[in-house]
């Protein structure tokens, strides 16, 4: 309404223990990248830029999980200089695949002898960002979905709530018109307990969902796990499929522990 040029919001992208795939998703927005750079000031994005503008930042995207003592301090700083902090991807929202270390047995730790473990400073667990600082929004996925990442950013620019449904993958699968792989083929599929967002790609490719977006906001494992068994999974299979990229997400973690106790 006013002719005054608006200040471009400052965007920062941060990395913790991760594969870089979620921040790469931003660079995969080939059609939008240059336009985005006009609307926001990409102030800190180490993977893409040597320039490093100081904070505070209007929006920080944080990738990766906390696995070292230095990480614990660094995330506090990032929170302090960020007006909004959005975690992106399974590592940042659930500890990632590296949270499999959380299940490692102490005896196994000691049995595996390594030449110089003292060179390495690492924590015994991999934890999500939200376990350390308040997070404004968590974008799920291993990796995050490109359209959803753009939605989070544009919603932030427009001041609206990002339209990121937390229901099951089945919603997307049906909307896409994909034939249910469980009902029609007897293929085990985590779709009914998995958070939507990917666009139901696995069932569309004839494969059961493997839960890379973590649990949906409404799961019923006691009813769901017998279905996996009906379709041929045993206890070990069930534990394995829940313990992958979102293994430390509370709903998956609890279900896998319960399964292990059987």
């Amino acid at each position, binding site marked *: *309404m006013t002719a005054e040029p608006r200040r471009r919001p400052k965007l920062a992208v941060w990395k913790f223990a991760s594969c870089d795939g979620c921040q790469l998703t931003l660079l995969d927005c080939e059609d*939008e990248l240059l*336009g*985005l750079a*006009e*609307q926001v000031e990409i102030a800190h994005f180490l993977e893409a830029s040597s320039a490093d503008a100081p904070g505070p930042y209007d929006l920080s995207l944080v990738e990766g999980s906390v696995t070292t003592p230095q990480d614990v301090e660094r995330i506090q700083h990032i929170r302090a200089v960020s007006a909004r902090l959005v975690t992106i991807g399974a590592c940042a929202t659930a500890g990632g695949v590296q949270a499999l270390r959380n299940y490692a047995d102490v005896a196994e730790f000691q049995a595996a002898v390594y030449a110089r473990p003292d060179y390495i400073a690492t924590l015994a667990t991999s934890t999500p960002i939200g376990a350390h600082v308040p997070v404004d929004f968590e974008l799920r996925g291993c990796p995050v979905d490109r359209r959803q990442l753009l*939605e989070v*950013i*544009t*919603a932030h*620019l*427009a001041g*609206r709530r990002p*339209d990121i*449904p*937390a*229901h*099951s993958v*089945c*919603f997307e699968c*049906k*909307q*896409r*018109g*994909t*034939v*249910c792989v*469980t*009902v*029609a*083929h*007897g293929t085990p599929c985590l*779709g*009914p*307990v998995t958070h939507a967002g990917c666009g139901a790609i696995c069932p569309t490719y*004839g494969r059961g969902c493997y839960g890379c977006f973590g649990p949906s*906001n*409404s*799961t*019923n494992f*006691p*009813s*769901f796990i017998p*279905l996996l068994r009906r379709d041929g999974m045993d206890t070990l299979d069930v534990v394995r499929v829940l313990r992958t990229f979102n293994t430390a997400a509370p709903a998956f973690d609890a279900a896998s522990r319960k399964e292990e106790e059987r």
Partner: protein
Amino acid sequence: MATDGSSPVVIGKDGLDALIATLTGRGRTVIGPTVRDGAIVLAEISGGGELPYGRGVELEAGTYRLRERQDGAAFAHSAGPQSWKTFLHPPRVREWSAERTPDGDLVVTEDDTVAPSYAFLGVRPCDLRAIAIQDRVLTGGRYTDPSYQGRRERAFLVAVECTEPGATCFCVSMGTGPATGPGYDLALTEVVDADGHRFLVRAGSEEGASVLAELPQRAADPATATAARERVAQAADRMGRSMPLVDLQTLMRETLTAERWDDVAARCLTCGNCTMVCPTCFCTSTEDVTDLTGDHAERWRHWESCFDLDFSHLPTGPVRESPRSRYRQWATHKLGTWFDQFGSSGCVGCGRCIVWCPVGIDITEEAHALDRERAARPPDGTGPS
């Protein structure tokens, strides 16, 4: 609208090919059953060869399997994973877009996409009823839905009577099949016997009659007409399931506090599949999107489900948080409060919700259980809660 009473005719498989060609020639996109990804889906077809001749289905709660049929029938299969709402009430629709002009005004442009002109081939009587039900919801009230109305008005419906109900079908108890009710442009009954593979055809509208006139045909012989009638009658006796023979609207109203809802909630995954496959479920949510500049916005709507926690959200949280309340909302709406809202049942007995529920929850079984519970514990008004 119906021109029922015009004499039925018989066409062969070539007539079916000609029907597809004629409809295509009239500028319509023909949607019909075809095999894809291990199921009989509804998709655009360009010729009779794409129809699922010789393929049937085995249905049970939570399972769907294709099987071969010896008789080579094209329509001897019951409801598949989708319904026609995919085309009439699509999963995602843009309603309008808006620009913020430099002077701060708001200019809204309605979506003016011209609705496609469909011909649906193989509309089951239950699905024909489902379309009529969605008509009432989306065009029968104070306002009409322009997207739905545009598609609906341009759609040509070829009904096919049901001769092969599945184990999950219960249209008889819902009064929606297996014989076709009104609302079709053409109605077919498939007959395969020693006399050959043929279809008894009736026109239900002027356009139906005019399309029919273009097809290679012969007058209906008594044997074919009788065979067609018998097959549909036999289908009525082979329903895999039935609803309890009680007033379902009252049953639902009187069992809101039943314990059975806890029982079904223990099984329900709240995955939303039943609502997505249901041919009458119409709920949607709106979604506002903006571009990076923030000066262009669009309003979309997409299918939504009462199983979604966010479906009933208020600023303080969801109204229906428990799975119990969400399943109950779905079932009581479908079977009960739909009457209050739209004057009919919302269920047509197609059985899709039973088949495509991963854990095989069966709405007919739930209704029977509620009926039994009500009988065992007469209602006391509000009941315990």
